[in-house]
């Protein structure tokens, strides 16, 4: 506590200051995991596997952007997976009646609309985000089944594949989209009034309101964004598979939340960054990819991933409490 301190704390070296940043430590962890996996599997660091992993990062990476915004305000969105499933079905059905671009617009608007409802319920009526989005999660999945008639919609136009497989300078368009999205999100959070407000709202909502910030708008916006980005993510999935399944996005909320938290965000809000989340996404994808390469049974993979996540956070907590003392 400030009132019990005398004299200024000592200044650390540049390296120490760097090491105090969670993102830096998590990047180191990602590199260590990558190094270990490259030793275990010679295929891991090949050009094609790296592109494969980037490709696998796209869907979860997009959802994690919305989740980062939500968690920064101190909220949580459990509905991203089922919103992805529902908006995927909406996209599949729309594609039977209209061209690709308007169909995608319908799906994204639907996702944003669902997020708007959740955000308003949470912030206007003071309901717990956990409970509201849990309810929306159940409703979303249920509607996905009903709208799809319990089967996958497989007559998706071939033109959808262009969204994923157009190469620009040798890089697939979905990977470029992911990179662009993270740059835009990072710039928004860092340099705009809205971005700084989102941090302030998550850190101390009462103080933010007393300073004249529009706390209601910037508390709801992340949910809208999260819903819309769930629809964007499922659009990329459908483009690859040329099929819209009501089960799409199942359990995706867990991967997204895990990626954000591994990336250093606090579930109480106010702390986290886009760079951290991106590293979190890569760590999740690398582990899964590595386990596949080593031929670990899919039934064991859940245990392995869960253990690694908990261990990573435990080590991080032990290291950070020493670093900040």
């Amino acid at each position: 506590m400030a009132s019990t301190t005398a004299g200024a704390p000592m200044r650390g070296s540049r390296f120490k200051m760097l090491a105090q940043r969670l993102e830096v430590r998590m990047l180191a962890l990602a590199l260590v995991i990558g190094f270990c996996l490259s030793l275990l599997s010679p295929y891991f660091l090949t050009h094609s596997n790296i592109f494969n992993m980037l490709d696998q990062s796209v869907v979860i990476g997009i959802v994690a952007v919305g989740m980062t915004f939500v968690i920064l305000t101190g909220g949580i969105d459990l509905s991203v997976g089922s919103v992805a499933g529902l908006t995927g079905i909406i996209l599949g059905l729309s594609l039977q009646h209209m061209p690709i671009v308007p169909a995608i617009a319908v799906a994204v608007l639907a996702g944003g609309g669902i997020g708007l409802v959740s955000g308003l319920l949470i912030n206007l009526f003071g309901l717990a985000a956990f409970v509201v989005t849990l309810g929306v999660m159940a409703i979303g999945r249920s509607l996905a089944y009903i709208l799809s008639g319990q089967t996958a919609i497989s007559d998706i136009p071939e033109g959808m594949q262009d969204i994923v497989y157009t190469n620009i300078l040798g890089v697939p368009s979905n990977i470029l989209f992911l990179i662009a999205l993270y740059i835009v999100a990072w710039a928004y959070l860092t340099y705009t009034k809205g971005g700084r407000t989102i941090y302030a709202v998550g850190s101390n909502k009462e103080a933010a309101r007393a300073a004249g910030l529009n706390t209601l708008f910037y508390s709801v916006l992340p949910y809208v964004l999260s819903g819309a980005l769930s629809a964007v993510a499922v659009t990329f999935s459908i483009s690859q598979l040329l099929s819209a399944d009501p089960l799409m996005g199942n359990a995706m909320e867990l991967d997204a939340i895990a990626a954000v938290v591994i990336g250093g965000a606090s579930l109480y809000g106010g702390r986290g960054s886009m760079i951290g989340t991106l590293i979190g996404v890569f760590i999740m994808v690398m582990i899964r990819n590595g386990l596949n390469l080593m031929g670990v049974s899919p039934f064991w993979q859940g245990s392995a991933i869960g253990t690694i996540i908990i261990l990573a956070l435990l080590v991080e907590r032990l290291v950070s409490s020493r670093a900040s003392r």
Partner: protein
Amino acid sequence: MQHPPPQGDKPLLLAARDVTKTFDRTRALAGADFELAEGEIHGLLGANGAGKSTLSKIISGHHSFDSGEMLYRGQSIRLRNTRDALRIGIAIVMQETSLVPDLTVLENIFLPELGRPGRLDYAAMRERGRVILDSLGQSDSLPFDWKVRQLSSAQKQLVEIAKALGVGAKLIIFDEPTAALSPGEVSRLFDVMARLRETGRGLVFVSHRLEEVFSITDRVTVMREGRTVLKAHPTADLSQAELIRAMVGAELGAIYTEPHRQGEARHGPAILEVSHLAAQPQVKDVSFSVRAGEILGLGGLVGAGRSETVEAIFGLRPRSGGEVRLAGRDLRANDPQAAIRAGLGFVAEDRRTQNIVPDLSVKENLLLAHLGAHRGFLRGYQSRKRKVSELLQRLGLPEERLMDASMLNFSGGMQQKIIMARWLLLSPKVLILDEPTKGVDIGTRAGIYAMLRDIVAEGAAVIVVSSDFEELLGISDRIVVVSDGCTIADLPSAMLDEEKLTLLAAPRTSMAHNTAMLEHFAREHGGAGFWALVEEDRIICLNAVVANAALDPGFKAGEACVAAQTQIPRALSRREPIFVPEADNGRTTLLLPMRNSRGHDLGWVGLSLFPDAELPQPEAIKARIDSIAAAL
């Protein structure tokens, strides 16, 4: 092994020698010495960060110490936790109470026993609780079955004290116990402390407020930068200046710069006008205005509705009636952003929960109100760059500390200055500050007062809410008193002192008794009754009841005027316990002093009647007044 007794005849309860404590990389105590005898109240003083809280928490078992020695009743002790401390009889009464809000008063008093196995004997607990409260002379002030959540700050503190006695504490530390209390509650607390001293307990009194230290402590210990600089010195031998010098390490001069009292000419036009503002349930009817270039004090007891009033003005609390006009334009309710853009600034009472955003850097905390007022998509920090540098110089904060990741590493005083600077950045027309020096050490306080003076010198208006009447009188040009959600007086501070302010602020329950008495007098005898403070040639009316309009004394409740300009100048100048007829023989007036049971002057009660009416016996009136006064 028995420790040698101190210079007095009282045995030593606690002695600490050369105690050190380091938190992380910060040295909080660098050799603290302290001693406490049985049956004494010992003041522990120091600026913020001097280490007095750390020392208190080491004595009470919250922290361990690194090196040094601590003797309790002659035995060397090393406490691992607060339970260890409680077991040997050391308790602490803290600012943030350790009570459980949803349990009852009784359960909280005996909280340490709730963990024991077996059934609880509520009847026995109730009986023991009764005995404890009786011993404090506070038998009726605590309803045992209420939840602690429903209690006032003062009552919660009493529960803490009772809790300490419940475990048989011999040594009780009071950490800033008066911070949230009204003057009446403070004097009740001091009664309780004096009783505890009589029973041979040793009390440590940690405080910023010098006048309280002088009124209650036997000896004082002063700390500075983690060291004891003045050890166990008898309070009576010290002057206020000597204490300040010991605390700050330098001569400070007068803390309060003399308010401008050259009259109202130098103040500009009214800039903020509040009329009949209501925000249920705490704010009922508040009206006042403040002029450019003026510091207006908003005084009253804790719970009178002052904080709620300013929050409703600023838009943080819904209004239920009335209007607020800033520079001639209506200020919308419930919209802090609109208020800020119109030129209002607001430093809320609680720094930690209402002002500081802990995850943003110092720089962004400084720019937070800018962000609120800013129109545009980008954050626009560059546009404020020059003003930020200017303000930092004024605060005496090096520019590189701006990038510090957390406000929480600064002292309370510096945090407060940064929050004030957050608003100064916007050059507000009116700046409202709620308890601006709460938890701020004496050195920084002077800096804050100087900042307020600078702000009004530049033509802005300042409204200060404070429970510290001395502070309010010291810095304000004018004081508006709020009691029970209503403005009841609006007077230049030059006319007031702490005692008068206390009387004006007295809650409405005592005012209701008083009004009933005045009404009784006025109705029964067909005249006019009033309650007023009378000085040389001036009078401040606290309450007036006129049953017959022809006998109006010429002043109303909350008004101040010169005695010669009233309808009863003769009676006011004679002040004798008889009916005094006025020169025109239009009325005759009885003026009697009122004193409470502690002998405090409560002003004068007057009764004006027609001279041809049947005059009552002055003794009968006096008896009635005394019985009312005893209850105040």
